[in-house]
């Protein structure tokens, strides 16, 4: 049998056979005996006082088992916790009750819940609940919320200010005092709805005899959910088992612990029966977190020759009505530290103000803070280039951190471990034929056509860890990962991971890695995730950390398995371990090819333990608890080529090039897929998506009818390529790829559109760049240019 390296091969996914045959195990697919169904009554007002609730008719409705309001939960359930308490920011965490106590603060805020025999009855009964609301003044934007006299959401958060977080490095004032050029701009990162295709769901089952909770849930991080369930419901952590096997996408929206989860647990415990709650899509739009929603005012100091010298950022972030699980960390730490990007700017200050508004809480959405940062710096690079009349490529080359300067400590105080930004840029320029394209652009301009080329030379920070950094940033948890690698008597392998992939394919990636290391077929390795009853601990899948952190943990555990197996093999072969070599799944005595034991033979002997060396414990299983020493820093260059229709304002993406350096690649097919999907979401933000509230606090883009989730005709073919700079501080060399596409792409598209329209004097258009917005910008530019006779 020929042996090929699994590590680095496009092995087909092991997840897929169950998913393509309709045999996945998503939470809503779970049915338990006696299971009841929950529905939540949600506020139709953006802001209102609840004067009275009458549940009598609902309770009397046939098939209804129970109706609860906020009053029923008081003293029996703690508020939903916020788990990222950023320090030194005067952070205010108002109580977030799973069902409102006396005031609703966003459309979607929970008011009451019904438990019934079937889902339709539960929903019918919601209509029988009579709530007397007294509407209150509404504020939906952070700029309104910051204004004097704005409606106030929380008594304990004066001025609606959730926090004011500050960061500064270098001598920023001096940089601006000495600046030859200062470029200023205001950017709006519009609010987005994550739209994982699977709505959220929970099936909670309390066993009154055993006093144990089993809960199936759509979570990206079951152990964090277990912890927060314990905090909220006072059920001991060791009496809670979370199962989240197949989760239908998350993109950050399934990190938080939500009121709906807590309510299903409460109802199951109160009634002693399993309770299922599955949100519908409209509920998902208002009651699952939103992303982005940040306004930034940016100033960049520079020299006339294009050298960037200083950066000042003031950011206003819309936190929504309450602080969701990780919300405060997103627009602060995850945004601010990476703002200087690929550049050697050493003077940098950032002030972030988080405001409460009468909107759905915001939290981590794919990229979480880093798309905002990359957008900001890459748009500023283009604006500076225009100001000093340099090519966007040259302004970047001028300011890049040199390839020989790594490790490099940035103005964001991050230690970039490795990088070669020039190489990725060169590769992308060659792929797109940059010089030829500029020539073509000039020719088309003569014909009145608008071709644009947009660059994004990004770097991001991911592989979220180490735990000490988490602590310093106020994250109420760790960011290490455990792993267990267990070789059974038959030689089959079980791998336990605390990460919880939900589409990213690590059941395959991890099996490849372990199969390769142990010399066993990939089919013999089973990766178990998403079950706190089987897996000792874990911090979950987000922040592009699964393979970099969880995978490295598995790597370390596998090395330990091989070390133990080698000692046992030496014992059985009556040789010294030093005389053994391990190759393709066999321990061989060097120089005596006949004397060998396979890993499967060793596994059998370890598991029966008939003949173990002195002092060696039985079994062939090793665990590790891996805490990295640094983040990882993927980078690359994305280039978007667009043509803007002069008559309609429609943006057509002609080409999209993605050159990414995500470190060592275990499965290129999966990595490409992550880039495709990430870029699609970034393009979605640039061109299509926008969550809009009206003055009353109604989400008027509250369904897939009104909010554009891009379809197949709206996303172009993405040409992917890579450079490979291994991560130097982990054993696998992996950096992470889950978020790169989203972080890299949005500004590439916007830079391309602005580049296309630069002959009209257009320097920015607010996202999303819909035909109407682009058309209006073109008309406005032409109107203002017309009187002076400029083209």
């Amino acid at each position, binding site marked *: 049998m020929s042996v090929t390296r699994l590590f680095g091969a496009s092995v087909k996914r092991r997840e897929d056979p169950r998913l*393509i045959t309709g045999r996945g195990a998503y939470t809503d697919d779970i049915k338990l005996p006696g299971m009841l169904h929950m529905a939540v009554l949600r506020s139709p007002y953006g802001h209102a006082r609840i004067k009275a609730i009458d549940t009598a008719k609902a309770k009397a409705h046939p098939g209804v088992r129970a109706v609860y309001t906020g009053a029923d939960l008081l003293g029996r359930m703690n508020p939903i916790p916020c788990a990222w308490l950023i320090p030194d920011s005067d952070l205010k965490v108002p109580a977030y009750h799973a069902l409102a106590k006396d005031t609703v603060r966003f459309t979607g805020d929970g008011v009451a819940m019904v438990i019934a025999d079937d889902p*339709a009855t539960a929903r019918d009964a919601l209509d029988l609940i009579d709530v007397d609301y007294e509407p209150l003044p509404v504020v939906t934007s952070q700029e309104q919320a910051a204004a004097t006299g704005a409606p106030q959401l929380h008594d304990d958060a004066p001025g609606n200010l959730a926090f004011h977080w500050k960061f500064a490095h270098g001598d920023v004032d001096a940089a601006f005092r000495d600046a030859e050029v200062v470029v200023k701009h205001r950017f709006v990162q519009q609010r987005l709805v994550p739209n994982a*295709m699977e709505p959220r769901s929970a099936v909670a089952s309390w066993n009154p005899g055993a006093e144990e909770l089993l809960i199936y849930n759509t979570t990206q991080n079951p152990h964090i959910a277990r912890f927060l369930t314990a905090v909220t419901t006072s059920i001991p952590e060791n009496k809670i088992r979370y199962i989240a096997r197949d989760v*239908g996408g998350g993109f950050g929206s399934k990190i938080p612990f939500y009121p709906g989860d807590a309510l299903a647990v409460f109802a199951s415990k109160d009634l002693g029966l399993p309770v299922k709650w599955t949100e519908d*899509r409209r509920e998902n739009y208002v009651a699952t977190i939103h992303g982005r929603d940040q306004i930034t005012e940016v100033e960049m100091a520079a020299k006339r020759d294009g050298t960037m010298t200083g950066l000042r950022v003031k950011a206003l972030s819309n936190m929504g009505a309450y602080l969701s699980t990780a919300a405060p960390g997103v627009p602060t730490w995850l945004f601010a530290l990476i703002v200087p990007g690929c550049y050697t700017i050493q003077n940098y200050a950032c002030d972030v103000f988080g405001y409460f508004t009468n909107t759905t809480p915001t939290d981590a959405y794919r990229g979480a803070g880093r798309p905002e940062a990359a957008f900001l710096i890459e748009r500023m690079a283009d604006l500076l280039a225009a100001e000093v009349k340099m090519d966007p490529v040259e302004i970047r080359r001028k300011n890049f951190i040199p390839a020989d300067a790594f490790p490099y400590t940035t103005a964001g105080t991050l230690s970039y471990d490795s990088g070669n930004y020039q190489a990725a840029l060169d590769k992308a320029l060659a792929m797109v034929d940059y010089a030829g394209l500029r020539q073509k652009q000039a020719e088309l301009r003569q014909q009145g056509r608008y071709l644009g080329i947009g660059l994004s030379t990004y770097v991001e920070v991911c592989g979220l860890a180490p735990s000490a950094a988490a602590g310093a940033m106020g994250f109420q948890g760790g960011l290490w990962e455990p792993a267990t690698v267990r070789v059974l008597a038959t030689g089959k392998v079980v791998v336990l991971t605390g990460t919880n992939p939900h589409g990213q394919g690590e059941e395959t990636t991890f099996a490849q890695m372990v199969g390769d290391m142990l010399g066993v077929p990939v089919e013999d390795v089973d990766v178990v995730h998403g079950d706190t009853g089987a897996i000792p601990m874990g911090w979950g899948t987000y922040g592009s950390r699964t393979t970099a952190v969880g995978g490295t943990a598995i790597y370390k555990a596998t090395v330990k398995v091989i070390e133990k197996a080698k000692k046992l093999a030496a014992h059985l072969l009556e040789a010294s371990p030093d005389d053994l070599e391990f190759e393709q799944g066999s321990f061989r005595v060097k120089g005596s090819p006949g004397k060998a034991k396979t890993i499967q033979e060793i596994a059998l002997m370890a598991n029966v333990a008939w003949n173990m060396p002195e002092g060696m414990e039985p079994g062939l299983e090793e665990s590790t608890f891996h805490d990295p020493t640094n983040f990882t820093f993927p980078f690359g260059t994305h280039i978007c080529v667009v043509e803007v229709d002069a008559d309609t304002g429609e943006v057509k993406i002609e080409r999209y090039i993605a050159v990414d350096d995500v470190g060592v690649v275990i499965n290129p097919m999966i990595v490409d897929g992550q880039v495709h999907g990430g870029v699609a979401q970034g393009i979605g933000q640039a061109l299509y998506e926008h969550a809009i509230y009206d003055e009353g606090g109604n989400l008027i883009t509250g369904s*897939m009818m009104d909010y554009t989730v891009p*379809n*197949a*005709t709206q996303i172009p073919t*993405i040409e992917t390529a890579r450079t490979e700079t291994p991560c130097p501080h982990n054993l696998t060399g992996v950096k992470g790829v889950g978020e790169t596409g989203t972080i890299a792409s949005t500004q590439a598209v916007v830079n391309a559109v602005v580049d296309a329209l630069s002959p009209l004097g257009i320097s920015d258009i607010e996202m999303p760049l819909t035909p109407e917005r682009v058309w209006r910008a073109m008309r406005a530019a032409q109107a203002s240019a017309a009187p002076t006779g400029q083209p």
Partner: protein
Amino acid sequence: MRQKISVNVNGVPRENEVEPRLLLVQYLRESLNLTGTHIGCDTGQCGACTVLLDGQAVKSCMVLAVQANGAQVRTVESLASGDAYHPVQQAFWDLHGLQCGFCTPGFLMATVSLLQRNPNPTDAEIREQLEGNLCRCTGYQNIVAAVRSAAEKMRAAPAASPTPMPAGAGGE
């Protein structure tokens, strides 16, 4: 008032009494335990619930169970024949046409229907004709590649691409 319906689902005749307001997708998932068909939205946009109703792709959240009375319904559970996947399933697997997998059953059924109508679609036709199915993971690129590949294989070996209905795929 419950109504009696007779539906042939994946080759298995079914008789049930259902509420008139029950959606076909709820009937499949709740009454027949065919949970391969997913519910991704309430408004007919996402296509995760796509099934074949008398051979036509429909969004089963937009059809009442009572409207399927007397009809043939095919769901994702019926695509494979024993160990042999339908060429569309196989192509999605081979070419990484899915990630989280939640939209996948709908895409598979929509693709089966598409290739019945148009055995040799261009990439642009594939994209246009799958407009009614949303995927948030893949950026559609590998879905388009999978559909193209399945079309090639099915054209090359039409006999090997029946639409089998194995016993046992009809739910519980």
